[in-house]
């Protein structure tokens, strides 16, 4: 099963490599990982999307907690949550497809953020499925570049993951 783990970690030089190293050393899956500092500059928030049996997820959770730089680990998938990912896509947009791509972007509530004679650069946010659907809707030959941030997530309601 797919799980979204949200981590608070010390904003220290080695922290990211410890976490990435843990996943590779113990052969845990890692679908995406996103990380950036929080409102408290000494703490980073990291979202890891992973998958595995319940037993493996439990191990991932515990092994992450064991790392000295990790302050807190929460499995967002255990309760209602919001997940979002940002994608930037550069597509070939010449002649009549220009209009069609614009329309598709609107349907997905994306935005064209840069334009050249032959290309559009489109920004789309949403969960992974939506971004996938958007890419599906494009002709693969038109796609020049895809850049995704990986998922970040937050719990719904009043629950907050803090120190």
């Amino acid at each position: 099963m797919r799980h979204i783990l949200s981590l608070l970690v010390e904003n220290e030089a080695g922290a990211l490599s410890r976490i990435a190293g843990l996943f590779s050393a113990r052969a845990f899956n890692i679908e995406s990982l996103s990380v950036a500092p929080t409102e408290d500059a000494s703490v980073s928030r990291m979202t890891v999307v992973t998958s595995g049996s319940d037993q493996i997820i439990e191990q991932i959770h515990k092994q992450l907690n064991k790392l000295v730089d990790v302050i807190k680990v929460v499995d967002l998938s255990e309760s209602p949550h919001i997940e979002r990912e940002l994608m930037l896509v550069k597509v070939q947009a010449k002649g009549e497809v220009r209009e069609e791509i614009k329309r598709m972007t609107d349907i997905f509530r994306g935005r064209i953020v840069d334009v050249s004679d032959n290309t559009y650069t489109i920004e789309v946010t949403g969960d992974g499925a939506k971004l996938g659907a958007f890419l599906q809707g494009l002709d693969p030959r038109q796609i020049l570049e895809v850049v995704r941030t990986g998922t970040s997530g937050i719990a719904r309601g009043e629950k907050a993951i803090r120190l």
Partner: protein
Amino acid sequence: MAAQKPVLRGAEIFVRALKDEGVEYVFGYPGGAVLHIYDELFKQEEVKHILARHEQGAGHAADGYARATGKPGVLLVTSGPGVTNAVTPIATAYMDSIPLVVFSGQVPKHLIGNDAFQEVDAIGITRPCVKHNFLVKDVRDLAATIKKAFFIATSGRPGPVLVDIPKDITAQSCEYEYPQNVEIRSYRPVVRGHPGQIRRALKLILGAKKPMLYTGGGVVLGNASEELREFTRTLGYPITNTLMGLGAFPASDRQFIGMLGMHGTYEANMAMHHCDVLIAIGARFDDRVTGDLAQFCPYAKIVHIDVDPASIAKNVPVDIPIVGDVKSVLTDLNGLLRENPERAEPQPLAEWWKQIGEWQSVDCLRFNRNTEVIKPQYVIEKLWELTGGDAYVTSDVGQHQMWAAQFYKFDQPRRWINSGGLGTMGFGLPAAMGVQMAFPEATVACITGEASLVMCIQELSTCLQYRLPVKVINLNNRYMGMVRQWQEFFYDKRYSHSYMDALPDFVMLAQSFGHVGVRVDKTADVEGALREALKQKDRLVLMDFITDQTENVYPMMASGKGQHEMHLSPDRELA
């Protein structure tokens, strides 16, 4: 008026911090990046530096010291090759959860990342085999980082911590104050077990009809041997120890039914397989213990007590997990047992012991004592007799290690010092140095094989320098015996590269290092030779026992098999 804090250079801070931490010995090897530190070590006498002959030797010595004393071992190495040589002992300590604090020199900060002379990414190289590591980037952080390193290494589930110190930092100055306490918000090991879980566990334990205690290195590391004895004796249940846990419960006690696992006793493994309640304490369900997981303890409800939550349910699902320091949890359990001695009906327990007695009567460790050629088991049995079971015994890795574990009956914890997790050949001799350093008057024996011994043989020189009268017991079968055994069983006797051709003359070798060397090649001479050697209180004696080349370690559970599927030696295979 506040007391003035002294202003010290980084190298002075380093030495002062070790003193303030109460460090007695630093095992190490010098080099460019740590020369400021060595200069400071030279100027004082409180912190004693032990110069090994290889960083691997220094690391295992620090590790042996830690295992025998329970105090953290301290290792100091230079940058580059110094720290790469230390990786094996660091990983060895990591696998066995040994508290080790390793200081490595690093090139000056402005050269980091430049492929400078003797630069390696020590933090990166050691990351997967340390509990934690630090790069010191500012001399003002040095003292606090050292404090944190000792705290992390010794608390919770212990382990090695590396502190990488760029050379320029050891030359810069700042005010020195050694912190009294450390608070690390992201690191708070659990101590007390959950009281509700403890009660639930006890209920299950008291209701067992075929109970089994299985305890590991965690009991030794957690200094919980006394509590374990009380718990086990109050219950009257059978107990087995893992390779790492030997001595936590006295091997001479009738409740002890031997080590378990791949080369454990028949009775211990059978009792594991057939038990209805398994009480695992400070053990981690390693694959050498469990065999095929699908067949592991099929009838048992499992209680698991461990300080490391990640050890629980890692390999085997557990019915009642208790996260906590084993000493604390056992103390709680003992307290409950005292006030509430409600016990299982005695009858089923008597039947269980009767069954165990039948398994014991197979006498799975029996070997032939009446041969002219020396049986390795016999040497260890004699050593045990002559030392009254009270020596410190280190070992290397191979058949001799298994025989030592089987035939030296440890009654005390921290007496049996071996590399169980990583299985590092070369560990035995340097580890024995560390133990002897800590206990100069004690008998310290290193049971080794000729292949393992030569892996760190240079340390004989260190033993001379510091007058360490280790008794080296070389069970010389002219083979990498354990490799040969597997090749005999599983590769149709194709002995690919397991033969030790061109061995040195170990007697002359010992002598050339300034020690006593003795060769023994007949069973009849074993006891006398051991007696003589043990009498030499101030000399290292290397005893080269020429042993039976074809002897195999039994019983044996082949990997991938269940615990109940053991092989006994061929002349006594079970019906």
